[in-house]
């Protein structure tokens, strides 16, 4: 029984990471209809920057902050220089262009930090025992951070004027532009925030795994699964599906260890075939015609 409760806590941490990382992908698709393969670049760079800062100063939380910053800067550059040229382009074109940017980014990572995976020390190594069950504190903190980010993002989207303009822009871009709102600017701001959050996700995930140049590849598919399961473009759906996917990976892995790797793909396969719009997706987005 203890094993299962610990697994649930691990799953919460994993789900938090998945949510933070997938947000840029989800927002990129929901707002700009661009399938953004290079969103994992912010995650990779965030993890590496937090590794460097951690090594130099020893302060993990400053590292996480810098990771947010580097993610935001990269997001700004990519959005203004690349993604704007890709609106209304063919899907094949956007996928290949963003993927090649991802490859270039990985090349830079290899150039700066080398090929070998780097370990990052766990900032909070404590296990708290509650009713006889040992709970890893760090995973709980990660989950809380993700929850706070979710609350802030939903508040921003639903309570502020800018957020309402964004939501309206998702539905009908020309009408929002007709009201005199600069949609491009608002999209850029949103995208920069989302990519910063992805960088933060990378920094938070760094102590739980080895930081390597190819860490983005594995996460890319996982975050795609999360976004599709939740429904493309829906923040609520992404959060819920990240929670579910975290549990699927963690509980599945406890049940039979190879399941931790394969269960997400099984879920993805079934979701695309049975409910391709995801939990909160727009109807008819997935079929041809």
């Amino acid at each position: 029984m203890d094993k299962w409760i610990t697994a649930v806590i691990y799953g919460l941490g994993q789900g938090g990471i998945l949510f933070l990382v997938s947000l840029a992908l989800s927002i990129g698709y929901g707002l700009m209809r661009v399938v953004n393969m290079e969103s994992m670049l912010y995650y990779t760079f965030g993890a590496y920057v937090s590794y460097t800062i951690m090594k130099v100063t020893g302060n993990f939380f400053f590292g996480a902050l810098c990771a947010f910053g580097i993610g935001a800067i990269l997001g700004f550059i990519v959005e203004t220089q690349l993604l704007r040229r890709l609106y209304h382009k063919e899907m094949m074109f956007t996928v290949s262009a963003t993927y090649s940017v991802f490859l270039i980014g990985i090349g830079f990572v290899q150039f700066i930090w080398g090929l070998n995976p780097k370990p990052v020390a766990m900032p909070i190594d404590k296990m708290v025992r509650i009713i006889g069950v040992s709970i890893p504190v760090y995973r709980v903190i990660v989950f809380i951070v993700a929850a706070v980010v979710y609350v802030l993002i939903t508040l921003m989207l639903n309570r502020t004027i800018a957020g309402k303009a964004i939501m309206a822009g998702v539905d009908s871009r020309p009408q929002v532009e007709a009201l005199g709102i600069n949609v491009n600017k608002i999209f850029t701001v949103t995208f920069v925030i989302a990519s910063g959050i992805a960088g933060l996700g990378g920094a938070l995930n760094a102590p739980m795994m080895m930081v390597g140049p190819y860490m983005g590849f594995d996460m890319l598919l996982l975050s795609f699964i999360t976004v599709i399961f939740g429904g493309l473009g829906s923040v609520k759906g992404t959060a819920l599906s990240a929670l579910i996917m975290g549990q699927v990976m963690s509980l599945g892995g406890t049940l039979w260890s190879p399941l931790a790797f394969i269960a997400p793909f099984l879920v993805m396969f079934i979701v695309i075939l049975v409910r391709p719009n995801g939990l909160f997706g727009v109807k008819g987005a997935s079929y041809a015609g």
Partner: protein
Amino acid sequence: MTSITNTVPAFGKYELAPHRRNMSILYPIVFILLLTISRYIFPNKMTLFIEVGIFAIYVMGNNVLMGYLGLVSFGQPFYLSVGAYSAALYLAHVGHSVYIAMALSIVAGIGLSLVFGPIFIRLRSSYFTLINAALCAMGLFMFEKLLIGVTNGNDGLWYRKKMNPTPILNLKNTSDFFLFTMIILFIILLIYRQIDRSALGAMFRGVRVNEKKMEFIGFNTFKIRWLGFGIASVLSTFAGSLYAINLAFVNPSLGENSRAIEVVVATLIGGVGSLYGGLFGALGFLGIKDIVSNFVSRWELIVGIITLVVLFKFSGGLWGVVSSITGRINRNKALTRIKEKSKMKKKVQ
């Protein structure tokens, strides 16, 4: 009838787009001859040229999906590894004939397209991309963990001793295998050229450009896409079996997800949707990789930059560049011919 074919150029049998008109049968012959000659000029690069031949078949399979149907798949390594394993498992556990192993891989490709085709091709392109990626991950898992009893997992299968030598071209011999690959590539290029010129190729392109219109005209677009998917998967599995026989060794790394991008990039470099794009893509991609690996240990940066440049500047890819040059030569020839004719006329007057 002629008036109809003139007004609807895409559907007429001989009314093809201007850049396709000079697709004479000489092109595949020249390409294959050039590859064969260059293998004898650079004798120590033979493995590279064999790989180019096999990879070209694989890229041509992906080109049917990407170029003709407009579907990007990130799961092509799965089809490749199914073909490789169907050949390898036969050779390692059942029989000794290389040709039967190849035939088995083609059967496996047809089987795959029958099982997955109807499910996958209903999906819109981004979902098609991702469900193939998921399939690829599950296939990797299957070959690595589930079927570890027959596939030996990550250790792979070795079976060079079990392969029987074949008459005329001994496929156990590398230089003979090179010639065999070239012959196979030539035959596949001819078939591919026939498809491209026929109504089927026009139908593929029509589905890509405007599927609703095709349906409205009265085509069954589902069947067209299914057929395209089938051709792609058969070409991929066949390329897989060639890999398996060439190396006499197969392990699950052939079907890794991260390798899915190679074939997509190669298709882009060669020229999406063009007849000889697959060949040029394979040559360009493997050539760049071979040259770059002399200087840098990793190729991601260079390949990424090249892909971006190709995407934004040379949307026709390498084949687009080549065909624009040949097109210019042809046009110049035609122009000089016209000038000469007009001079002659003047002289007569």
